């Protein structure tokens, strides 16, 4: 079965630094998402992306966050100036349709902000 791939699997950064998390969604999928999971807490929605623009975002997704699909295959999440509270597992997901279609998740990037 096709998979969503995420790189890196672990990222350690200093507070205030910029990080870019990368994802390669499934090739025929049109809808892309980022979720995050702080240890022991819920999986939280960050943003959805369709047709080269943000279709929905949560209150977590403030000006420090941005997403981009730079080359038609990659989907990136950028955090401009990381905070300690950004430490979490970040999951990329994609789907062919936005309705009740299932999400395909990547294995996640564990971001640690020191």
């Amino acid at each position: 079965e096709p998979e969503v791939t995420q790189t890196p699997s672990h990222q350690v950064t200093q507070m205030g630094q910029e990080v870019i998390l990368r994802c390669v969604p499934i090739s025929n999928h049109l809808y892309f998402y980022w979720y995050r999971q702080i240890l022991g807490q819920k999986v939280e929605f960050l943003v959805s992306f369709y047709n080269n623009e943000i279709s929905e975002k949560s209150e977590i997704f403030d000006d420090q966050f941005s997403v981009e699909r730079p080359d038609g295959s990659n989907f990136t999440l950028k955090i401009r100036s990381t905070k300690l509270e950004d430490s979490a597992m970040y999951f990329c997901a994609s789907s062919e349709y936005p309705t009740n279609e299932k999400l395909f998740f990547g294995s996640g990037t564990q971001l640690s902000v020191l």
Partner: protein
Amino acid sequence: AQTVTQSQPEMSVQEAETVTLSCTYDTSESDYYLFWYKQPPSRQMILVIRQEAYKQQNATENRFSVNFQKAAKSFSLKISDSQLGDAAMYFCAYRSPLYGTYKYIFGTGTRLKVLA
């Protein structure tokens, strides 16, 4: 706003036995979608089963079935004939059908241990 609650942080089941994982949710919508996702130790979440709220019949996928109680806003997952490979974190999730709504709302998860 919709919420999803999983009150069992951890459950254990003997191999070949049956286990039920609980999920409750809160919404004012009359139609919606509910899901159970499994996150094995490799951490890639995969869909186990889904239920459309307008369907009265409970969804079933092989050894996995749900007990959907719309009035009670309850959506439990039953795993029959548990196998070692069922050990994982299980997340209950809600999705609104409203146009322009894309997010899934997840619970905190239940870690299932399967004992040999």
